[in-house]
């Protein structure tokens, strides 16, 4: 998408928001002209930045963990029919389970702190990456592997020159597709058993302080977190997988 189009769309959304605020004219829908200054004030003078960083750290840690664990596992399953036959029923059952329903269980086991939140998001990303990388590795034509082997490649060179670059698009696609869900689930986990994170910030301003402009500023921050992650992955994909975008 063109930058200009995206900026225009963002502007249109804000205009729509402004009009809706004027029509509804109640404190539960403050106008963007009210929210945006609060947003900056809360970041600079308030503690929203701290909450945002807590949320950001949780998503990044989950992304990192899921990539380093799911990508090798996916490669392994994609290369070995035997292993895949053994594990695929388990994956088949676990993959579609909405991981968010596991939140209470993970909280029971791991209590407060960052770990349960990171674990939940990890579970979402893990299966997504695992399945995509596995299918990608399994779909590599055997002709390709054979011709690279015929050039002298052993296991090490095959991994570095074939399997790794082949799984990169799958990893990035999986991240791009699931980063939205990850942030959504992050919000839910942060409304439980924590006093840090944008989820908590939004929840606290909405239900306890009844400070709606601040709540909206939190919603805006969380949306920007999701958008920022999405765009970063998208950018990486264009950067690292150029071959997928040539005409």
């Amino acid at each position, binding site marked *: 998408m063109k930058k200009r189009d995206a900026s225009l769309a963002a502007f249109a959304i804000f205009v729509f928001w402004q009009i809706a605020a004027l029509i509804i004219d109640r404190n539960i829908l403050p106008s963007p002209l009210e929210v945006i200054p609060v947003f900056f004030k809360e970041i600079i003078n308030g503690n929203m930045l701290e909450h945002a960083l807590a949320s950001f750290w949780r998503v990044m840690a989950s992304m990192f963990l899921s990539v380093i664990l799911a990508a090798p596992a996916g490669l392994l399953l994609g290369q070995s029919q035997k292993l895949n036959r053994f594990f695929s029923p388990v994956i088949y059952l676990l993959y579609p389970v909405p991981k968010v329903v596991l939140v209470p269980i993970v909280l029971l086991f791991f209590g407060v702190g960052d770990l349960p939140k990171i674990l939940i998001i990890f579970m979402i990303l893990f299966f997504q990456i695992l399945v995509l990388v596995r299918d990608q590795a399994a779909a590599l034509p055997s002709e390709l592997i054979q011709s690279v082997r015929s050039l002298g*490649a052993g296991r090490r060179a095959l991994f570095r020159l*074939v399997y790794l670059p082949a799984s990169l698009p799958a990893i990035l696609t999986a991240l791009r597709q699931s980063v939205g869900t990850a942030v959504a689930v992050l919000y839910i986990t942060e409304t439980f058993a924590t006093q840090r994170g944008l989820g908590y910030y939004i929840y606290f301003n909405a239900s306890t302080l009844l400070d709606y402009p601040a709540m909206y500023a939190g919603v805006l921050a969380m949306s920007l977190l999701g958008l920022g992650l999405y765009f970063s992955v998208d950018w990486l994909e264009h950067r690292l997988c150029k071959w997928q975008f040539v005409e």
Partner: protein
Amino acid sequence: MMITLKDLTFSYSHSTPVLQNFNWQVQRGERWAILGASGCGKSTLLYLLAGLRFPDAGELLINEEFLPRPRPQSGLILQEYGLLPWATVRENAELGERIRSFYGADGIHAPRDGSRVTSGLLPWLKRLGLDALSDKYPSQLSGGQRQRTAIARTLALNPDLLLMDEPFSSLDAITRADLQNLTLELCAEQNLTLVMVTHSIEEAAIMGEKILLLGNPPNRFPQIIENPNAGETGYRDSRIYTELCQNLRQRMEIA
């Protein structure tokens, strides 16, 4: 002697052996075409020569040596999917060199003799008309350009044996003839021994000074047709060529 098959037997699990007590020899510098219908085992034979499959019984020797793995001095070119889709023409053509520098001249993955390692890539890209395309990805190339890239990659490694599996089957007639001529030219120039697998009678007749005809498995005896005029200019239009094609067609119907 370049290639020797002695009482070689190969079968895929629980099926009729593709080759049974098979004997066959290829001399250095010869150009062979292996011809047969699909399922006759011609690709299997090529994979055996490439060191990607191994005989159940009997011996396969290349330059008097067994073949426990792909031999660094053999080049293999397949019909499709031989190129890395995420690498440009140049990166694909460099792949062999990269793999060699990965392991060093260990005599296993790369020849021990360093001087034969590569002859440099650039002249090959130029020679094969790829220099203007070197930053393109395989998906942006025509089938003929893709096969030229595969050829550049192989020849940059200075092979003495070229193994080709239906390399031009998915190309249009003009491009195919063009690349057949190029291959003949390069074989003569680089002193290459060629073994090309094909299902096309015409291609076998044009490429092979000797043609090995395989029939339905099990193949026990090599059926060899001499074709000494192959590769001469004007051969495509000669009577010998037309008659040979007829002859081969009849033989294939019997086999």
